[in-house]
Structure formats: C-alpha cells, structure tokens
C-alpha cells in the first residue's frame, strides 16, 4: 500500500499562494526529495505533511488513513517522525536523555510521576546513538554539541519513535560537505533496512541527486516536474526555474568544497 499520499494540497497566506494543487505519493523504503528555489513552498508542503500547518484544501493520507487535520502528536502515534530546518532538540538535557524522552513518549509514559526519567530506556537510547556514531557523546549536554551533531541527535530522536515515514526538512543545512554525504548515506541505510519512507527537502543538489530516488520540483507553490534525478536534470522547465544558477543542476563531482 502507498505509505504517503498527498492529494491536491493548497495553502495561502493572505494573498500569497504558498502551495496549490500539490499531489504526490511515497512508497515504503523510498527516498523522495522536494526541491525548488527559495520561496517555492517546500517548507509549507512539508509542514502540512508534518501537521505544523493546516492546509486550506486537499488531503494527506498515511497508509490510507486521512491525517489532514490530525495534530502532530497524532501523526507521531501513526508513525510520522520528523526533523526541522533549524534543529530542534532539548538543549537542557543530555544527548541520551533527548532520545530517552522520545522513547518515553513513544511508550506513553510521559505522565509518569515516580521512577526517574534518566533510568528509563537508557540502553535502547544508547543503542540508537551507537548506530548514528554518537555513543561517545551520550552523556554530554546537548547544548554543548556542534550544530552538525545536534542534527544527528534530531535524527536519533526521530528514529526513536520507530517511524514509518520520516520527514527531513533540510537535513544537512549548516553541515560541512563531508558530513552531509555521511549523514545521508547513514539515513539511507537505516531507512532501507527498516523500510522507512523518507521525504526530504534540500538545497544541496549533490545531496539531492546523490540520494533521492525520485525528485519533485516546486515553483511558486506548484509542482512543475516529477521524476528520477536524471530526468529532472534534463527537464527544460526546471532548468529555467533555476536560471542564473545553472551549476546547481550539474552532475555531482564527488565531494565539492562546501
């Protein structure tokens, strides 16, 4: 069954149309990228799928279930995990506690009043951090981490909820070029193993063309092209949309300087 099905989403802010007639679908284990110039509506579409924004029209189906108006909490329970454009983590907690918090919530223990939180799901959290290469900083305060590492913590938090669908809003923004490829390789690996579908937006075309199986191009709130990375690269309309930034669509040349 289709994991995520987005049908005719529309959203405007005042007189500005941020998304119009946006439809696409995503299968389990697939990596789908949404790209587009600044202001194309990527984040709007993203936040409508994640539940942070309510669409004016259209619907969002997860495994056939209509979640168009569901709160983010409900979506989490149904298997949606996400990371944010500006990393959102719990800065007053240690790295492990960040992940433990997600596990506590996942097991519906967030209203428990007695046994200390730091004793709960510690091993599971550490195992997850190990997977992401973060075991060594498990007990460091999250506020002491470099930004790239905070993004990894965010990924760990998102994965702790055992998502079926993972939404990543510019997962590599603010990271060094090498880190970007590593993070996305790792994400792809985990997603593949667990059959997680990933929807991500990204400005870095190396990341997009290197990792996405399919790409959607948004321009002024509309989808102007959908297809494999190769098809997108050849698409005339897309080239026009990126006019003035033609290098953006060139074939990746290994690791480029940041």
């Amino acid at each position: 069954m289709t994991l995520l099905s987005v049908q005719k989403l529309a959203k405007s802010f005042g007189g500005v149309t941020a998304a119009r007639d946006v439809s696409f679908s995503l299968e389990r284990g697939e990596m789908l990228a949404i790209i587009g110039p600044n202001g194309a509506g990527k984040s709007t579409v993203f936040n409508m799928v994640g539940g942070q924004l309510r669409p004016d029209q259209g619907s969002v189906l997860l495994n056939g279930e209509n979640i168009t108006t569901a709160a983010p909490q409900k979506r989490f329970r149904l298997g949606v995990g996400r990371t944010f454009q500006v990393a959102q983590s719990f800065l007053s907690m240690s790295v492990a506690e960040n992940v433990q918090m997600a596990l506590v919530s996942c097991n519906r223990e967030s209203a428990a009043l007695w046994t200390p939180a730091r004793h709960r799901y510690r091993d599971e959290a550490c195992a997850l951090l190990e997977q992401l290469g973060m075991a060594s900083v498990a007990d460091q305060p999250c506020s002491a981490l470099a930004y790239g590492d905070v993004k990894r913590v965010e990924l760990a938090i998102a994965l702790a909820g055992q998502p079926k669908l993972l939404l990543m809003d510019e997962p590599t923004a603010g990271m060094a070029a090498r880190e970007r490829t590593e993070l996305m390789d790792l994400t792809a690996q985990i997603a593949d193993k667990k059959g997680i579908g990933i929807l991500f937006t990204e400005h870095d075309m190396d990341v997009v063309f290197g990792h996405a199986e399919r790409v959607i191009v948004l321009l002024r709130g509309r989808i102007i092209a959908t297809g494999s990375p190769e098809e997108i690269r050849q698409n005339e309309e897309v080239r026009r949309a990126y006019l003035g930034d033609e290098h953006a669509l060139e074939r990746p040349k290994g690791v480029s300087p940041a």
Partner: protein
Amino acid sequence: MDLSFLAIQALNGLSSASSLFITACGLTLVFGVTRIVNFAHGSLYMIGAYTAATLVPRLLELQFGPLTFWAGILLSALIVGLIGVLIEVLLLRRIYGAPELFQLLATFGIVLVVQDLTILIFGPEDILGPRAPGLRAPVEILGRRFPSYELVLIAAGPVVLGLVWFLLRKTRFGVLVRAATQDREMIAALGINQALLFTGTLFLGAFLAGLGGALQIPRVSAHAGMDLSIIAEAFVVTVVGGMGSVPGAFLAALIIGQLQAFGILIFPKSTLVVVFLLMAVVLAIRPNGFFGRPEVIGGTHAVGIASRKRSVLTPFLWVAVMGALISLPLIGDAYVLKVTTEILIFALFAFSLQLLIGVSGVVSFGHAAFFGLGAYGAALSLKWFALPMEAALPAGLLLAALGALIIGAFVVRLSGIYLAMMTLAAAQIIYAVAFQWVEVTGGDNGIVGVWPSAWASGPVFYYLFTLAVTSIAVFLIMRIIDAPFGYALRAARDSEPRSEAIGLGVRRHRWIAFTISGAAAGLAGGLYAFSRGSVDPTLLGIPTSVDALTMLLIGGIQTITGPLVGAGVLHVLRDLIMPLTSLWRLLLGLSIIAIVLIFPRGIVGSIRAWREDAA
C-alpha cells in the same frame, strides 16, 4: 434609572477611559519597541500625580490662570519623561536581552524603590491638588450636574490618540517606532541608532504616564498605592488591546471605561472583577488581544533547570540539613521556631512556583492566588464548617488545586507575556473577591481565630508538623521533576515543535503541572494560615506573588534547591533589616535589581558555577 442617569454614567465611563488610555498608551508603546513590560509604568503615573499636585499650586500662586495650570501639568509630565530616560539609561538598557521574567522583576524592583522614595520626598500624607481654573463650575447635562473638568478629560484621550498617531505616521521617529514594533531584528540590521530610539521611546512612554497621573490631580488626591492600582488596569488595557497596539489600547480603554461605569450598577463592589473577567474572556478567544501579533518565543532552556551530574555528597547534605532541622527545637527558642516555620512554608510556596517557572518555563506572575486560596480555603472551612485542622488543610489544598485547574485551562493556551498577565489578572480577580465579599471572607479584616488542633499547637509541635508536611511535599515535587512528567515539561519548554513531533501533549502536561503547583502552593497557604492564626487579602496580593518570584531569583532559577535557599535568605534578611529601617522596600527593590544585573543565576547557581569553574 432614567435616561439622564445613563448618559451621565456613560460620560463618566468615557472620562475614565481617557485617563486610562493616556497612561496605557505609553505602556504599550514602550513594550512595542523594547519588548519590556514595564511594571514601573504605574510608578511613573504616581510620580506624575505627586509632582503635579505639589508643583501646580506653587505655580498658581505666582500667576493664577488656566494657562499656568495646564503648563504645570505639562511640566510635570516632562519631568516624569526625564525620569523615564534615567530609568532607561541606568537599568532597562542592560536587560533588553534578559529573559522576560528578569525584566518583569527588575521593573518591579523600580516599583519598590519608587514607593519608598515617594514617601521620602513627598511625605506620607495624601496630597490634594488644586482644581483647574476656569473649569470649577459644573455643567448641566439633561438636567444633571456634571463636572466640566471631566468633559476636558473626555476630550484629552482622543487628542492624545491624534497626536500619537501623528507622531507615529508623520515623523521619522514614529516610522522607527513602528518598524521596531513590527520587527526588532530588522531594525537592528538597518544601522539605526537603537540606543537613541529606545531612550526616546522611554521618554515618550514615561511622559504619557506622567501626563495620565498629572491629569488626575483635580479629581483624586495623589496617594501611595495609586501605582499598583493603575498598573493593573493599564496592563489589562494593553493586553486586551494587543501589546504594542495604540489603537487597540484606545478601543480596550473605551470598553473598560464603560464596563466600569455600568458594571458598578450590576456588581456595586466588584468592578475590578468585571474588568479582569473581560481580559480573561478576550484572551481566551484571541490569545494576542484585539490587534496584537503572536510573540516569537525562543527556547528558554537558559533560564530553567537542566540535567547535570549528581554529586555523591548530595544525599549526605540532605540528611545533614534534615537532621539539623529536626533537632532545631532542642536549641532554638520560640521566636526562632516561628521564623523557621515561616521559612519552611515559604520555601514550599517558592518551590511550587519553581515547578512552573524553572521546569515548565511557564512564568506565572500571580502565584499568590493559590497560596491565598489555600489559606482562605482552610480558614473558611474552619470558620463556616467547623472542620478541624486535619480536614481544613486538605480542604485548602483542594480549593487551590481547583482554582489552578480552572485558571490553568485558560493559561496554558497562552505564552510569554500574555501568560504572565493572565496569571496576574486571575490573582487580582481572586484578590478582589476576597476583598469585596465581606460577608463570607471578612473583607479587609480577613478571618481570625484560625488555630491548629490541640496536638499541633505551640511553637514546637507546629514547627515539627510544618517540617514534616513541607518536607514530604518538597520531596514529592522533586520526584516529579526527575520523573518523565518533569522531563516532558522541560522538553516542552526547550522546544515546543520538537515535543509535539514526539507526541507530547504540551498543553495537557502544562495544565497538570499548573494544577499540581497550585495545590502545593495551597498547602503552603493553609499551613501559613494556621501558623499566623488569621488570613487577610494581602496573602493574595501582587507583593506576595513577587515575594515568591524574589525567592526564586535569590536562590537561582536554574537550580532545584535555589528556591529553598532563597526563601530562607529573604526571610532572614527581612527579619534582620526591617526593624532597623523604614526603607525596607527601597532596599529590597535595589537588591532585586542588583541580582538581575549582577547575579542572574542566584546564590545556589552562582556557587555551582564557581565550583564548576574551579573543578
């Protein structure tokens, strides 16, 4: 009730709306530009009234006439404007980046300082100002006499609105003020002399406060206490209108003026309740007031409790402290025991607030509501239902918890400064009820004869009883802070979007926390009632809320034990210093300001930082 009577009431409403708008307009402008809620705005209003009431008669002696009178009013407002500049340069400038709790407390420090200075400079007596020359004879409206000065006041509001509108729309200063109100980061990026803009805004805001106060002198005498009464109303006006919105303030002042004028006919004694109910209703429907815009609230983990490594010594420290407290009756006399009993009670009160502020990031400015509800609940059930202490204390706790449950339902929908104002409003409503419902609560005099049961009476046994109850309550709250529930509250404070994305019900958690915190404060209130043998409305007042906040601040907001230490330090200082000087408020105010500026981490936080640096 005939037509002419209604007309006169409406006119009365309009004149009080005018005064209110002139004052609140300054408050909302200052907030718009500096993002500081200036508690001292009411103090500036009071200074305006005192200055005018002192200055204008002298001027009139020199040359009697309307011109002199109005020049005197304007001169007084100008003087207050300059005081505003002084406040900006000396204090506000240093705290623009501070968390809003610190800003509120610092400006409240000014309130305390001004209260004592006003008495020092102008004397303890009320000062009755002169009547306005040329406006002494009343006019006749529909057969009723109406003071002509009130008509001038009615016109003053729209005139000030027009002038402020002109200033904001047609001058460069006004353009900058509007730009700063809409986007503070942007204005910082434009290379504008921000210091000058902020100082200018403070001058304008203080000028308007002073003008509002000075215009009152022919109507009411300048008196101590007018600062807090006007600030409560001005807060309501700015919050209902939307913080930063001048037209919003005007509309809100009009509505509130009429509500007060006609509310007095329906609830003769509780106009305050009507006003605050309006605010509660408006905020419930429009969380940012009529024309306000949502405030962007950043992560506030920096002012809250964070995880840290536990020292192996901590349990021993606790055992030592408990041992010392338990054996205190062996060495302390009755006075020491009484003081320590009160410290324990206030420690629990402050600690209950820490669950909201330090853990949840919910800045409650009206925590006295629950302390007072607990005290009144216990006292009322003793007086009206003849319950013994063992049943009256839980009754007080339940009443406070119920109050917190109801108020919390409104509060958790809000954030930032609106939330703080809503809690303040709620506390003021309950204060007004306790003050005005004389038949049940005893009004100003309160309820006396609230004594503990025989087995717990006497300083030693009541001390031990209080020690047992507060220790258990503090221990339970500590468990809650460490438990998943406390972590979930911290999570919601650190990042709301992240918390929602991992399925945490942010509002529900905050609501439960609000209720638990209210219940704990209520328990403290009940214990306090029995320790003093009486309750009165001051337990519910703003100063009581500020006491709790000051204890948090002294001890340190980022620490769990901070409020406990803070309660002890504040209480001991008060007991030591108060008998020595009549300027206690001045000292307390200056201390609050000093702590905000120099030791924002408080005692426990500073000691910890010092030890960590040394390690």
